[in-house]
């Protein structure tokens, strides 16, 4: 090993360790080279100074200050079931009204239509309509009743 490589190897050995073979090589070099040995000792002292400098430096207690500044989670227990619950209610409501929505609309028979017309006309106080016999197919009375309606109707 050359002395110019020693500094790098010494600092690596101090900070993170060298592979065994390289550590042994460095050890042999330091045994033979007084200059590098002194260099290694000085670097060890620097590392110790660096390590120890802030060792006794404690932080003020930050717990109260930190906890005062945080925002608590927004109802974490509520959040996990709130969405599914709303979805469930919506589905139940849809199922409840589905039969009514899907029910086929029945058309009125001719008889029912005529009956409704009759009721409407009766409401208009047309006297002749009441004489129509709705139970037969003879609708001449109806036609007569319609013909007698006031023109403005």
């Amino acid at each position, binding site marked *: 090993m050359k002395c110019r490589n020693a500094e790098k190897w010494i600092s690596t050995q101090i900070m993170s360790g060298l592979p065994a073979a390289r550590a042994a090589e460095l050890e042999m070099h330091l045994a033979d080279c007084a200059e590098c040995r002194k260099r290694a000792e000085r670097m060890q002292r*620097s590392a110790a100074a660096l390590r120890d*400098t802030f060792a006794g430096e404690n932080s*003020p207690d930050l717990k109260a200050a930190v906890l005062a500044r945080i925002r*608590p989670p927004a109802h974490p227990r509520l959040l996990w079931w709130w969405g599914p619950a709303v979805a469930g209610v919506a589905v139940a409501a849809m199922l409840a009204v589905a039969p009514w929505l899907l029910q086929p609309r029945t058309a009125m028979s001719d008889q029912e239509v005529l009956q409704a017309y009759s009721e409407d006309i009766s409401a208009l106080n047309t006297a002749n309509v009441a004489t129509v016999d709705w139970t037969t197919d003879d609708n001449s009375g109806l036609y007569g009743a319609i013909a007698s309606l006031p023109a403005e109707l």
Partner: protein
Amino acid sequence: MPPLEADIRKRFREGDQDALREIVERYQNSIYRLGLRMLRCSEAAKDLAQDAFIHAYEKRHHYNHERPFEPWFYRVAMNLARGRLRRRKEFLAGEELPETATEPTADAEVVRQERRRLVQAALRQVGPKYREVLGLRFESELSLIEIGHALSISLGTVKSRLSRGLQAFHKAYAAVGGETYEMS
């Protein structure tokens, strides 16, 4: 420092404030010292420590509680510290030395303060990327792998930066008279 227990990690992830309290209790000194080493000011270090805990709590959804807490947390703290260094234009010369927390009251305290002053003066000469790894190694006692995770760098880069960081500090420490001080 032993790694954070799984139960606390899980509760922290769920937003439990008691878990946060335990985390602050456990890591506040370490983060504060890291801040001192990085920012070199006790007030700035205190602010950094507070903000690191709050930021971590607000970003806890990004943390996988099945993995170790320390590398993730120190990455949050280091990113905050880097941002503050950028804003302070860290690399410009002429910054004041950090204030001392207490007045020296005895010879031993005077010696300690003087040594710390020299170390800080030397650290000022060391590049931030080296200060980061030195801080994480000495203050936070992270393993080399954890430092790599915290800084998103490879294990080889961690080793290289630690080695070069020590060399740079050693030269700077000698230049400010620290080596003479150590010999005396």
